[in-house]
């Protein structure tokens, strides 16, 4: 039986324009065989949750380098849950200190990647940990 291709939304919340990482990850995930939708910059949590529902994705990857991760991650999860999409896996990356990363995991973020993580690690993690939604 052919496996359903996972659909991943790569999202760049916040006001900053640091999209180098997001674009590289988007491309690596696409090369890794997933269907990838990239939101572009300057997204609000509402726009991201809306796009995730509209596009019926299995996971949302957030790229945050502004320091606002403690506000933005929980907000995206809350809005996804509000829209009945609480089972979408939320992961992300950026300049995120360990103590924040641990706290984010207790708040429902599935994985946090920090500088130095390779695209290969991320593709592998998605392959092994993201479940297709029904």
């Amino acid at each position, binding site marked *: 039986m052919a496996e359903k291709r996972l659909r991943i939304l790569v999202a760049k919340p916040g*006001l900053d*324009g640091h999209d*180098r990482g997001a674009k*590289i990850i988007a491309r*690596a995930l696409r090369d890794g065989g997933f269907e990838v939708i990239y939101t*572009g910059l300057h997204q609000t949590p509402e726009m991201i949750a809306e796009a995730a529902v509209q596009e019926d994705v299995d996971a949302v990857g957030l790229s945050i380098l502004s320091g606002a991760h403690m506000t933005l991650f929980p907000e995206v999860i809350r809005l996804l849950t509000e829209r009945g999409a609480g089972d979408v896996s939320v992961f992300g990356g950026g300049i995120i200190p360990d103590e924040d990363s641990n706290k984010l995991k207790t708040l429902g973020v599935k994985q946090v990647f920090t500088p130095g993580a390779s695209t290969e690690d991320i593709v592998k993690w998605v392959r092994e940990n993201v479940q297709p939604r029904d």
Partner: protein
Amino acid sequence: MSTKQEWLEKVYKRSDERPVRFSTLSDMEVEPLYTPEDVKDDYNASLGQPGEYPYTRGVYESMYRGRLWTMRQFAGFGLAEDTNERFRFLLAQGQDGLSTAFDMPTLMGYDADHERSMGEVGREGVNVTSIHDVARLFDQIPMGKVSTSMTVNCSASALLAMYLVQAERTGVPWSQVSGTIQNDMLKEFTAQKEWICPPAPSLRIVTDMVEFCAKKAPRFHPVSISGYHIREAGSTAVQELAFTIADGLCYVQDAVSRGIDVDDFAPRLSFFWDLHSDFLEEVAKLRAGRRMWARFMKERFGAKNPRSMMLRTHAQTAGVSLTAQQPMNNIVRVAIQALAGVLGGVQSLHTNSMDETLALPTEQSVMVALRTQQIIAEETGVTNTIDPLGGSYAVEALTDRMEREAMDYINKIDEMGGMLKAIEVGYPQREIAEAAFLYQRQLEQGVKTVVGVNKYSIPEEIPIEVLKIDPLMEERQIQRVRKMKRERNSTALKEALKRVAEACRSGENLMGPICDAVRQDATVGEISDIYRAEFGVYKDPGWI
């Protein structure tokens, strides 16, 4: 003696090379040896003496023997009074110019009390919502004596107006105000990605500022044409060189098309380069940039004033090269990158702090970064001779090659109708994304090395103390902004904002009306809202 070709084939070939790819950081393949055969330049035409056309060897005749570069550390966080304190610390440490980092809301044209500012106020830089924040930022700093650089782009017109009006209020006439505002919108669309309206109206606002400064604040640098962000977004050194010069050509063309004499504004255009880790490549880039700009200004635009032809530049060590792993290694990277800047002849320099991949730098690490510049300036002796690498076969050959390859890009962009058109179709954006992806792959395959990351890594916990921002700070700024908005004269404000909107439509220079509006306490967000309403909002096409 054998020729280079004979030597390569008969002598060099006998030896074994290490099994690595001999290429620059930007993946330009490098030959084992450069000789006089590789450097066919005519000295006068291609190099010239320092301070003489085409300025390859330096824009000033005495260079660092006359005056060292300006040591200008970029700083900003929290409320204006927090940054003011850091500014005064830096001036006390022997720094001679200021450089302001603003937070994301200020940079994107939102007030502190806007919902999109939530969680971002004062975090990556200082929050400036109104002229009152500018007053706090420069409290006790003589605005007529200390030159200030402000790194802000799409909301630059509001910040420039606030800066000028605040100078005027402290008794400093505009004719004496010196400083720089980044205001390079073209590179925003390709690299830094902070924008409000689409490229064409963005360019119009920039040119309004160029024109206004030429007439009213002639010592102020209205645009800092920036390669820094292009490189940090992942471009190669050649792309940084090509796209930056192409951006500069676009600004000059736009101002000239308005009928402004090139020599009335070009002497106040300045540049901002990235300094990455490939030492010779960076030195060559800086030298090639000077030669290219001089030739374009003279040949394409008919500039007569030599100052219009001089590419004067600020430079910053590459933030993107710093690693979170083994962060003390960053001190070494910064020192080598800064040395490339000095040997490349920059006029002003920022050295990054070792902890910048983690958070805003602490006072201790900023001091090490500044001391790095002081060591280069006063201990190493490299400032004794002008352009000491000039004449090196390798450096001259690389300088020529960078110019040649950058010219290929510029010719292509010219064929597309110039940089504005190229940006509208995403050409430089895609080129940069492609280069960034390629580099990432080379890193993961071990073709390129980053010490402590993909080689020589160790199990470690990162011990550096990082600057923490007070979480109550955002709330304080929001309350302060709300109070200011309640207390100002709303009738006069509305009238002033209406005139800004009218100028957007009529084509009148925007800066006069914006200065009047900030005198009535108009905020960064309110002026930006006028742009949003009049010019529309640019949406990221999200090319990957």
